[in-house]
């Protein structure tokens, strides 16, 4: 059985350093909210739709409350108050606001009991729906058998949800376990979630609730046919983290990209905004039984995978601590790792084996999201295919949780139907071929692989120590993360962050916390 020799104390220490970093942010997570958090609340209350110009109703309501300087109390209260007064549904109230027919802050204050009753009912209703979705998923896995490990994860990214569905179904038949619908370019920078079914995206398809629904339906259909539950995933990270998480919970996505700091570093989203949003977003994921996946691969697409290996480890440990804070269980923490080592390097496979094992060793229960070579993929599709073969080799050998299959055309275009099929075939073949190898070999105790893993862990731990001393904000400002200095009050979306008033209400967060024992 292959395993590393690492002093458990060292691991504990690294974890403690990460925990110190995360714990110091309690003030932010407790006292602040953001526009997207409020929009999430509205969505969870059952409000959806867009006006004739395409502006999503939840955005209109939140803007309305901001204008009226009433958002600090939380959107939930205002809607419930109006519902109590008008005896209309949340959606009906919202529609009136969106048409400019209603000013929520002008409505007479209703009795707290009435308002709380309404909120309670709405909250319970939605949480029940989400719980049922979770139940459905669990039963489906019971009926068809659990997801295999490594799970075969492939992306669809045509820009057209209908082409996406056809391709996702084809992939499912070919053996995919998880389908990711890639979002259109930089959707993470939109401070709203587009509405409806869409057919025009760049390098991906809009993440909309309708698109989620269409894909979920397609996968359920093909799953029934082939006798397997096909997992669906999309991206939460960005300016709408909790909203998309909520949509995912409602539409029964099973896995969601959700990185605590990706938005800050790689999308220049304000740090307070992201940290706040991820907190609620992950809580929704946790409640819905959705597995999160983090984006450590992003570190390696810009920096060297050997030199900066420790940044992956450090980020994994931070993501883990944030996940714990939101109630996510270890077996739902799909921490990221990527095979981005320069293929020209001697022993690239040996390095990678060390790095991949380190992740496994640190997070034995996590369904690690293992990413393929992308940076060194070239227009030589055959070479890229060979690199993906070794990637699948390590995935199989180290028994990774989720194998995000590499595409031979990575350097050329978003995956074609054929590319995906060949990728799945490759993974199937390699996983089968190396089955059992794991049990047959062991790693030399004092060899390079162990030394290397220890070194990376030491570097990560030292780095985390330093960050915990400087404070996360300062460290990010200094460019300690991914060489990307981001000012505390810069970046996108800071204007959407606000301090809660003492009367602030987020009934969903409250109930979820209770259920998650937070």
């Amino acid at each position: 059985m292959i395993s590393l020799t690492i002093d458990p104390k060292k691991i504990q220490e690294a974890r403690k350093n990460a925990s110190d970093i995360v714990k110091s942010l309690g003030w932010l997570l407790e006292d602040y909210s953001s526009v997207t958090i409020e929009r999430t609340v509205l969505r969870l209350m059952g409000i959806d739709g867009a006006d004739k110009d395409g502006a999503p109703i939840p955005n209109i309501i939140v803007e309305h409350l901001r204008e009226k300087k009433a958002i600090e109390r939380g959107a939930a209260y205002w809607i419930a108050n109006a519902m109590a007064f008008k005896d209309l549904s949340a959606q009906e109230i919202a529609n009136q606001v969106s048409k400019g027919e209603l000013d929520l802050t002008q409505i007479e204050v209703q009795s707290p009991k009435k308002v709380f009753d309404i909120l309670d009912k709405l909250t319970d209703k939605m949480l029940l729906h989400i719980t049922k979705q979770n139940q459905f998923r669990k039963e489906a896995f019971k009926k068809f058998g659990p997801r295999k490990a490594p799970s075969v994860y492939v992306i669809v990214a045509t820009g057209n949800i209908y082409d996406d569905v056809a391709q996702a179904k084809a992939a499912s038949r070919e053996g995919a376990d998880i389908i990711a619908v890639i979002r259109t370019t930089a959707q993470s920078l939109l401070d709203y979630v587009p509405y409806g079914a869409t057919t025009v995206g760049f390098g991906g398809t809009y993440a909309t609730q309708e698109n989620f629904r269409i894909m979920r339906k397609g996968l359920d259909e093909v799953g029934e046919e082939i006798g397997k539950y096909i997992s669906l995933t999309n991206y939460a990270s960005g300016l709408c983290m909790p909203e998309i998480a909520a949509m995912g919970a409602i539409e029964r996505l099973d896995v969601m990209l959700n990185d605590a700091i990706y938005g800050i570093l790689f999308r220049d989203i304000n740090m307070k905004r992201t940290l706040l949003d991820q907190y609620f977003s992950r809580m929704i994921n946790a409640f819905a039984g959705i597995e999160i996946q983090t984006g450590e691969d992003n570190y390696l697409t810009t920096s060297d995978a050997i030199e900066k290996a420790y940044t992956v480890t450090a980020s994994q440990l931070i993501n883990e601590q944030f996940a714990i804070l939101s109630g996510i269980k270890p077996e739902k923490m799909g921490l990221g790792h990527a095979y981005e080592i320069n293929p020209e390097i001697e022993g690239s496979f040996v390095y990678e084996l060390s790095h991949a094992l380190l992740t496994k060793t640190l997070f034995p229960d996590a369904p690690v999201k293992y990413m393929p070579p992308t940076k060194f993929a070239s227009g030589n599709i055959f070479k890229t295919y060979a690199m993906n073969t070794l990637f699948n080799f390590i995935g199989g050998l180290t028994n990774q949780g989720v194998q995000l299959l590499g595409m031979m055309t990575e350097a050329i275009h978003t995956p074609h139907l054929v590319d995906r099929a060949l990728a799945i075939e490759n993974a199937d073949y390699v996983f089968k071929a190396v089955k059992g190898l794991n049990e047959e070999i062991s790693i030399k105790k004092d060899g390079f692989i162990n030394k290397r893993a220890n070194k990376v862990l030491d570097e990560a731990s030292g780095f985390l120590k330093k960050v915990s001393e400087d404070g996360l904000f300062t460290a990010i400002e200094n460019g300690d993360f991914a060489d990307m200095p981001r000012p505390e009050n810069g970046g996108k979306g800071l204007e959407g962050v606000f301090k809660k008033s003492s009367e602030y209400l987020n009934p969903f967060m409250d109930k979820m916390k209770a259920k998650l024992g937070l």
Partner: protein
Amino acid sequence: MSIKIDETKIRPYGDSLDDGRMQFSFALPAPCNEKGKEAATQVLKQMGLHDIEICYLNDLGEGFTHFVAYASTSVTVDLTKIQVKIVETPVMNMEETDAFIEENIGREISIVGACIESDAHTVGIDAIMNMKGYNHRYGLERYKHIEAINLGAQVPCEELLQKALEVNADAILVSQIVTQKNIHIKNLTKLIELSEAEGVRDKMLFICGGPRINHELAIELGYDAGFGSGSYATDVASFIAFHYADKIKKGE
């Protein structure tokens, strides 16, 4: 709503309906630079392709360059108009075939097979004929009501024909694996011509097989049936059994 395919105008599919996207890989005696790239582009252009992306070029030495490209075609094919000749008899398993022969033919079927002329690739014909069979389907030798004789590799056409006549064969099975310079066409044609010359073409079934053989080609070459990659004894046995049962039914 979902993607709708018009069967009368199908076109290669990359990731969007009718994008016509295809992958190409080839070498040219051209330099590994922008000039070579342009030469590669021109080759593809002359093939009617558009949106040509030469995504990789690599110097192979000796003046050659390798190109990998993606490009779109605007040709379409009318799927509804395509007619192909395929073996249409249903496929029975060994037990069924044996029972079928017993019931409908009432005598033993005799079959002679070989890899003819220069071809020494016996694995294919063995897969069909040998006791052991292939991929969990027993070979013809195991069939109760089939007498199968496998002459093996590099059997001259004359010898095969003679043996078949000698045992009064119901069918001849020929395997051709090597296809370089269309050697398989030459060899298969030779056998048929020989059988015609000797006036025995209609005395038995002539069946051929191999990875580059299909039923259509076989018919074209004057054979009764052809079987490609992934065929099994079951396919051939069923075909032969049905043929003779049919003949008996028709009173021939």
